């Protein structure tokens, strides 16, 4: 079977989440570079996954898919997009077998032959009966992903489920672990494995309280919840960096209209792709907290340091290994160039000086609080009159820091560089015209 790529589903879900219902089917399909037929097929498949994952939800019949996965803050405890990671295709017989094996092992260690028997007894009549070789291969896989363990002892070996995490902790402790997992999955990176663990623990805890629903006490405000879609590529890229391997991919700049090209084998359906085939040596993955976006930074043989948005990457494949010296030389160079990047700008460093104005006596100084919290490596010095403070930072270019400065509105004044000061004046003038006529 060809390696399954989730590019289509990822692009699809991202567009659905970001544009939440803005497009008609045709418009949506056009922008993804797929046919309406493929659009319908994809949505059908995603719906199937969602409904089997979230069956405790009220009847989804007739509810539009976009509405199903729309972000509702008060119900945001379970990350809706996690179902993407449940979308791996499996033959009915394989998913049936693997779950039968695990269910049979629940409560008792068994040998491969005992498991074969158990499997044959409970396999639905519509599915083919497994043979010993298949069962052994399944057990090997389950052992490899760490779900079961071979017990010590004489042959024939017995296998048991690895349940220590839920069995060796008291109910109280499990509650604390669940909370910890919830908090860390939401506030730290990476998060997908944490969300998967949270999901498993949650189901276990609900079973332990006789099916009573769990009260979810935690909410995470201003969270970029679609960021987990990009974690789909993350581990492959991190693996390639760790192994000093190049990667190739078809890149769609998010600024262009189309974001996916179907990789059709039928020549009749082949279309020109707007994407660009790239091969680079990956060096670092960057998460930008300002927008909730991911970047891949790497070395391109011809163009040097290159930057890509993870959301534009499709058909990612690992390539050859490069010598350690080549990797470390480029990595050091990148680290050096990134030292003063507000986000990922590797251009010339400039000193930016800004005067921030305190909100006035008797009011909590939320301006300074925010500058200290978000001002990265910049320094803060109080001014003598007590009405203001100076913020100074050496940063690569001013493009990336500018939105942050602008977000403070009239609570600040750019002093240097003069060019940035002038740009701010021009922008405020224009913004003023947006609102003058009302």
């Amino acid at each position: 079977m060809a390696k399954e790529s989730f590019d289509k589903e990822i692009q699809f879900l991202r567009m659905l989440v970001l544009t939440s219902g803005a497009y008609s089917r045709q418009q949506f399909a056009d922008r993804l570079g797929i046919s309406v037929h493929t659009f319908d097929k994809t949505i059908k498949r995603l719906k199937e996954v969602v409904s089997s994952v979230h069956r405790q939800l009220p009847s989804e019949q007739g509810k539009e898919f976009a509405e199903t996965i729309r972000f509702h803050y008060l119900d945001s405890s379970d990350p809706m997009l996690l179902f993407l990671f449940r979308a791996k295709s499996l033959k009915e017989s394989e998913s049936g077998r693997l779950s039968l094996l695990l269910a049979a092992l629940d409560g008792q260690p068994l040998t491969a032959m005992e498991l074969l028997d158990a499997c044959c007894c409970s396999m639905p009549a519509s599915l083919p009966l497994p043979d010993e070789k298949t069962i052994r291969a399944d057990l090997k896989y389950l052992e490899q992903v760490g779900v079961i363990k071979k017990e010590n002892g004489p042959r024939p070996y017995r296998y048991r489920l690895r349940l220590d995490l839920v069995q060796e902790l008291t109910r109280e402790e499990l509650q604390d672990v669940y909370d910890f997992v919830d908090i860390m999955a939401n506030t730290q990176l990476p998060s997908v494995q944490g969300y998967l663990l949270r999901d498993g623990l949650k189901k276990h805890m609900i079973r332990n309280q006789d099916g009573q629903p769990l009260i979810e006490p935690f909410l995470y405000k201003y969270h970029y919840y679609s960021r987990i879609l990009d974690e789909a590529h993350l581990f492959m890229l991190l693996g390639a960096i760790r192994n000093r391997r190049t990667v190739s991919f078809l890149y769609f700049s998010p600024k262009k209209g189309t974001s996916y090209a179907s990789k059709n084998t039928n020549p009749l359906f082949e279309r020109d792709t707007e994407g660009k085939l790239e091969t680079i040596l990956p060096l670092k993955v960057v998460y930008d907290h300002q927008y909730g976006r991911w970047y891949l930074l790497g070395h391109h043989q011809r163009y040097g340091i290159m930057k890509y948005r993870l959301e534009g990457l499709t058909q990612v494949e690992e390539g050859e290994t490069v010598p350690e010296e080549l990797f470390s030389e480029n990595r050091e160079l990148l680290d050096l160039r990134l030292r003063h990047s507000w986000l990922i700008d590797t251009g010339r460093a400039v000193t930016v000086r800004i005067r921030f104005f305190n909100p006035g006596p008797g009011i909590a100084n939320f301006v300074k609080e925010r500058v200290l919290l978000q001002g990265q490596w910049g320094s803060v010095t109080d001014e003598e009159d007590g009405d203001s403070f100076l913020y100074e930072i050496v940063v690569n270019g001013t493009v990336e820091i500018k939105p942050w400065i602008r977000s403070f509105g009239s609570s600040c004044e750019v002093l240097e560089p003069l060019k940035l000061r002038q740009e701010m004046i021009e922008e405020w003038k224009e913004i003023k015209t947006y609102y003058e006529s009302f």
Partner: protein
Amino acid sequence: MNPFEKIFNHQILSRLEDAGTFMVTAHERGWLKTMLRHPAALEALEAETLARLETILEQDQPLDTQELLLHKAASKEKQVYHALLRPLRRAIMNKNFVRLSYGLKNGRGFNEQTAFPYKLEYSMVKREWYLLWYHMRYRTLMSTKLHKITEVHEEPCSEESYEQLQATVLSLLEKRKLSVDILVERQYNAELSRILYAFSCFEKEVRYTEESDEYTIRLSFLNNESEYVLSKTRFLGKRVRLINGDYMRGRMLESATKALARYGE
């Protein structure tokens, strides 16, 4: 490590759910092991639990992402866990009241107020925990930083009052909801993705008008969030324009006028 392992397949998952079987993979344990190295683990878990987890996870490999993953423009991580999360979370879980003592920004303090706690909220921007609660005496919704709370005592609440208070909270939240329409200036349509990402942390609806090739984003938020919406709008600068809401449009005009005054314009 592939997050698309077949073991995570939805059919397996739903069959295991039917059978009532718990399953956990090395991926998830490796993730947990990595997270246990974070200082928050020491606050969130008892020493005994931590020791037990260490034994359970002994053979698992942590995810080594630190060196390879760089965070940019993040707020300083002031707080990930807070000691009051445990008692407050339990009060919420037990559907109970709490008696709260807490301080305010201006230094004033309140003692033993009866509170109906309904959520614990972490701000990804301020990196701090808040208790969201209903003030029984003043009949109003409150939000208090956990680090301002000095004392918490759980108190019983009847099933009936609980149901009633839940409904009250929801209806108050509904009443506090505002919405505003934000137009993406057409010459910035190429930056649509960036703009939509910036607003993706809100409840929103996007409309697209094909004839004019224009996008309008309708954001929904609570009335105490207008400041944050304004700051996001200023953040995006000329790319977006608020097209309704007199108060917020007025505030944008005020920002621009005052900012220009700072520059002597």
